[in-house]
């Protein structure tokens, strides 16, 4: 049975394009953004409306995007270009400015292409590769100062410390609620599935952030009333799958559907379109530097490597910790073709998890359906492996 608050969130999403239209009529401005390191706190504190852009899973849009960029770019990037080319996505239509960070080089360059062909108003936030070095952190701080000044010019407002403190409090509340929701979906006899929580996270890409936090609190209250506190204890014979790897954006349901169809239960993720942006954000003071320092110390995207030092790699350590906390029994490592940072890291991620007796299955895919059956066989065998269905008497 669908939770009442989930229905409310769905209704709110239906209404959101109209709300944005009305806000724009009132003179408010919408900042659509792409990437991983854009701090929404600053956009929000300047009185702008942040919207996270990008959808996946539509091979037709990928083909549209491929008219403007190479077929050797990942499908998410190609579909994003396709979205701008078609200009039917309500959030792209309503974006007055498109912010992108340079975490993913493909996406950053794609925005340059989008600017050239579709005359958008872009703003770029530079991100260091070696973010763990003081020079890298200083670079990001300066980049964020420049980014903020550009947004101040765009909004006509100056960044106010009190307003920024309020925005930080709002986003801390959202992140805390999302982390709590993830505990519920992994719990025994959970009334909410991972898939529903993932959709709730994606709703937060679009909804008014104050309203979103209010809905998150309402959802947590409903869960607590109906279920009590989340307890992750018994395994109950489920094949508990943890999802990692390349982005799975809104509307990309191929792998998720297959996992569920073959009897797997997803119990967590460390996706940059899922839980990870809510983790390890510790903003010590309401300033640009406070935010820059906090963002640079989050769980890094795979394109921000630790020079393959698997012992100190925060991304790998975070993955191991989340798998452990959610009692995941196997990791499905989803890589999009030409998403090099995640694809390159698949083998050592598998090797690191193997030391903890956690098997990893890499699924390397695109948005077309041509590999659907092959993926179904692999995921099916992986679920069988986890469920240990194949431990049967060999005697006949």
């Amino acid at each position, binding site marked *: 049975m669908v939770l009442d608050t989930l229905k409310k969130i769905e209704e709110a999403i239906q209404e959101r394009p109209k709300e944005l239209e009305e806000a724009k009529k009132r003179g408010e401005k919408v900042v659509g953004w792409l990437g991983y390191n854009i701090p929404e706190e600053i956009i929000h504190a300047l009185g702008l409306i942040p919207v996270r852009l990008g959808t996946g899973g539509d091979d037709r849009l990928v083909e549209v995007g491929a008219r403007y960029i190479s077929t050797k770019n990942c499908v998410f990037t190609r579909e994003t270009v396709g979205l701008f080319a078609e200009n039917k996505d309500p959030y792209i239509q309503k974006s007055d400015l498109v912010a992108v960070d340079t975490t993913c080089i493909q996406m950053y360059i794609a925005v340059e292409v989008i600017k050239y062909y579709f005359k958008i108003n872009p703003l770029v936030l530079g991100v260091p590769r070696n973010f763990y070095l003081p020079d890298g952190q200083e670079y990001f701080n300066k980049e964020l100062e420049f980014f903020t000044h550009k947004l101040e010019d765009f909004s006509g407002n100056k960044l106010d410390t009190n307003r920024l403190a309020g925005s930080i409090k709002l986003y801390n509340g959202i992140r805390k609620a999302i982390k709590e929701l993830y505990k519920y979906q992994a719990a025994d006899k959970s009334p909410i599935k991972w898939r529903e929580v993932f959709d709730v996270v994606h709703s937060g890409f679009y909804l008014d952030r104050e309203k979103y936090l209010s809905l998150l609190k309402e959802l947590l209250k409903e869960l607590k009333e109906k279920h009590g506190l989340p307890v992750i204890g018994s395994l109950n014979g489920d094949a508990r799958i943890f999802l990692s790897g390349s982005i799975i954006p809104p509307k990309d349901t191929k792998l998720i559907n297959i996992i569920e169809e073959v009897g797997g239960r997803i119990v967590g993720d460390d996706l940059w379109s899922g839980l990870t942006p809510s983790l390890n954000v510790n903003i010590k003071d309401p300033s640009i530097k406070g935010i820059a320092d906090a963002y640079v110390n989050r769980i890094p995207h795979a394109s921000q490597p630790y020079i393959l030092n698997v012992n100190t790699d925060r991304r790998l350590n975070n993955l191991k910790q989340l798998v452990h906390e959610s009692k995941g029994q196997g990791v499905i490592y989803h890589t999009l073709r030409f998403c090099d940072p995640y694809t390159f890291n698949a083998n050592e991620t598998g090797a690191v998890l193997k030391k903890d007796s956690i098997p990893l299955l890499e699924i390397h895919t695109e948005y077309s359906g041509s590999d659907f059956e092959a993926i179904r066989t692999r995921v099916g065998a992986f679920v069988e492996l986890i469920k240990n269905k194949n431990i049967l*008497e*060999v005697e006949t």
Partner: protein
Amino acid sequence: MTEKNNKKPAFAGVDVGSLATKSVIVSNGTILGYSLIPTGINTEENGLLALQKALDNAKLTRDDLKYIVATGYGRISAPYADKTVTEITCHGKGAHYLHPATRTIIDMGGQDCKAIRLDEKGNVVDFAMNDKCAAGTGRFLEVMANVFKVKLDDLGPMALNAKEIVPMSSTCTVFAESETVSLLARGENPANIIKGIHRAIANRVAGMFSRVGVESDVFFSGGVAKNVGMKAALEEVLKAKIVAPEYDPQLVGALGAAVIAKGFGSKV
């Protein structure tokens, strides 16, 4: 199930592959019957036909069967089965049944190729599968046999008779076909080219094993396992002896499905 003649319960596995549909019947510790037919366009009918032929071969009727497991890519259209299991798990059980010391399986079927690692009970502990490509599959070898105007079964012995090896740079079915035509036009010896084709495929298969590892004994299953040239090339590249089961390697998946059917059926 018919108990009137004190018959032991029988269990069936049906493996609906891309090129061939196979069925095996087991009972009381022995293989009673089998069948192998080409896969047509109706996978459900193919599975049922293979099952019936295996029953005929075992001199049993459908009523004698206690449990049926379907596998292979056509398992999704098998309403006659009590359960479906992936071919990866089935090949593990089938290989373990035939050769319990099996720890590694190379399965080369009609449209895909798999590297499977087993524990001592025949449970799958790791696997890798080729990626969106016909290289190393039965379909690839069919195309190559057509280029040389020979029967598929002749490719392996021809490779073994090669005096030298002509390197093949591509394992893409389309590119390998055009490369082969060019090599023949250049006057290269066909057997040497065929050996080069087998080596190229073996190198590609070795790439999958770099992910899952190789542990003896190594078992070769699937239709391509009938190709002696491929077996020799794999042994050379993997630097491992491949055991030759005294059973049709193309039936291993169906046999594993029957073994699993026995496991589930015994609990019913």
